[in-house]
């Protein structure tokens, strides 16, 4: 290849690398910099004396561990519910030709373009009637439902990729339809199941606006709400803030490493909302 072209390529790729990584690097570096060094001008780009003091503060002096647990509970339970519902629905869409199938696919796709922020007020009113405001149940329901259309479409794709002959054989051998789904189709579609679960998990883990609206008591806060409360206070403690942010990012990044391969499909359906 032309050396000039190689140069351009190399420079371009390096530039994108720095652009993508630097903000995240800066968050981690800030979280490791002692408080007094954060406010030195001009800035230093590497923490000269890295410290875990902000992490220690986060664990000992803030409620972040509790918020972390709350988020973990809500996100795992919600995505487990989402997965159950989408496995059943996705299976039906992949294996049966029935009236309304086309409409179902279309409606599920269209829900991905609904302005979610508009739902906050009516759902607030509904949950107030149900007496679920200020509890994690309200969020579990919301996160479950918001992820269902997309996860169902995703599961449909995975089931469509699994040959149906094995299930038929299982049914000839005396399995009923439910047994064939659970014993044959689900194990075969396991990578898809994991990816779907993780997509739902990331969505629930990251959600802020419903949580801010529905939760009032600090003991129920999820991690985004807890961190939001730090930043909305007049005096932001940036070191601690970045330590909290790093902790919040870790599970999402770990999940990302797994689902990266499925991203294109997810993004194509227009459902991955960050």
């Amino acid at each position, binding site marked *: 290849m032309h050396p000039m072209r190689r140069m351009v390529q190399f420079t371009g790729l390096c530039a994108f690398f720095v652009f993508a990584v630097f*903000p995240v690097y800066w968050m981690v570096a800030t979280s490791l910099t002692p408080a007094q060094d954060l406010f030195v001008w001009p800035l230093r780009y590497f923490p000269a004396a890295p410290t875990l003091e902000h992490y220690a503060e986060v664990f000992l002096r803030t409620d972040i561990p509790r918020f972390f647990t709350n988020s973990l509970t809500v996100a795992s339970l919600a995505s487990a519910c989402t997965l159950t519902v989408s496995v059943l629905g996705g299976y039906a869409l992949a294996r049966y030709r029935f009236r309304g199938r086309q409409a179902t696919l279309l409606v599920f796709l269209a829900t991905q373009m609904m302005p979610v922020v508009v739902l*906050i007020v009516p759902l607030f009113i509904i949950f107030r009637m149900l007496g679920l405001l200020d509890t994690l149940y309200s969020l579990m329901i919301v996160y479950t439902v918001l992820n269902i259309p997309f996860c169902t479409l995703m599961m449909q794709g995975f089931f469509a990729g699994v040959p149906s002959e094995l299930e038929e054989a299982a049914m000839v051998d005396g399995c009923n339809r439910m047994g064939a789904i659970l014993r044959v189709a689900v194990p075969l579609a396991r990578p898809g199941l994991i990816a779907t679960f993780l997509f739902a998990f990331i969505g629930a883990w990251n959600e802020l*606006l419903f949580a801010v609206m529905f939760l009032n008591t600090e003991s129920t806060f999820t991690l985004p709400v807890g961190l939001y409360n730090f930043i909305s206070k007049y005096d932001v403690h940036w070191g601690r803030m970045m330590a909290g*942010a790093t902790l919040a990012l870790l599970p999402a990044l770990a999940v990302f490493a797994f689902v990266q391969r499925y991203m294109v499909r997810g993004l194509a359906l*227009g459902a991955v909302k*960050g």
Partner: protein
Amino acid sequence: MKKADPYLLLAPAYLLIAGFLFYPMATVFLLSLQEYQLMDPLNTPFVGLDQYAFMLGDEYFWRSLWNSVVWVVVSLFFQFLLGFCLALLLNSARFRGRGIFQAVVFAPWAVSGFLIAIIWAWLLNGEFGLVNDLLIRAGLLDQKVGFLSREETALLSCVLANIWFGVTFFAVMLFAALQAIPPSLYEAADMDGATAWQSFWRVTAPMVKPAIVITILLRAIWIFNWADLIWVMTGGGPAGASRTLALYVFQKAFLGLDFGYSAALGVALTVVSLVFTAVFLRVTRFYGDEAAI
């Protein structure tokens, strides 16, 4: 195989979506015809189209709508431009460790709206922010600028954070489209003596055009409806300078506790989204059973 089976299997999905997506969506229209203050939930008189009449005269509404246009158009333009460049670079470069490189540059996708906002709020901080430091060192600024607290820069700061996040989305989608172009097309162009420039415009561009159109539309709808990032970064301030329509809907409910007016604004937001969605579904020709791409 029983005829009712697929419906039974889909029943939980149908019920939950009907109950917690469509029913609330429908009540938004009813709410927008009422006077509904959160502090006074028992007194919610029907006021007809008053909320909408108020909306048309509300300068903050028009300002938020204009901000939404800037927010969507400027973000999209740069996300597309940079995302396409990244996809082309990834597609043309063959080197060891490309898989890992790809995973790293795609990682911003995993960062949620509120974390992006927190990170960029710190980068753009007016006192000890990195961006100020870099610009001053480069001689582009004489003194520190409070990017998030100035009217001229608040919205563009949010746009910058959005670009950082969204380049990935475009890069992933367009990279997939580029990979799907059969190499034989380039070989044929080569044989016919096409220059690199010609084969880009005659082969690459037409082949990825559908992916570009779909990605832009999807992204436009989503950015238009996205409120978290701005809410955490600037809270819509100063004085509404960075408040988009989606954020206005949220703030009227959360801070203003005015559910009726928030619902009316929500209806406006929904109408715009529906127009986008109709265009999107039309363009992707969702007639077959396979999803868009």
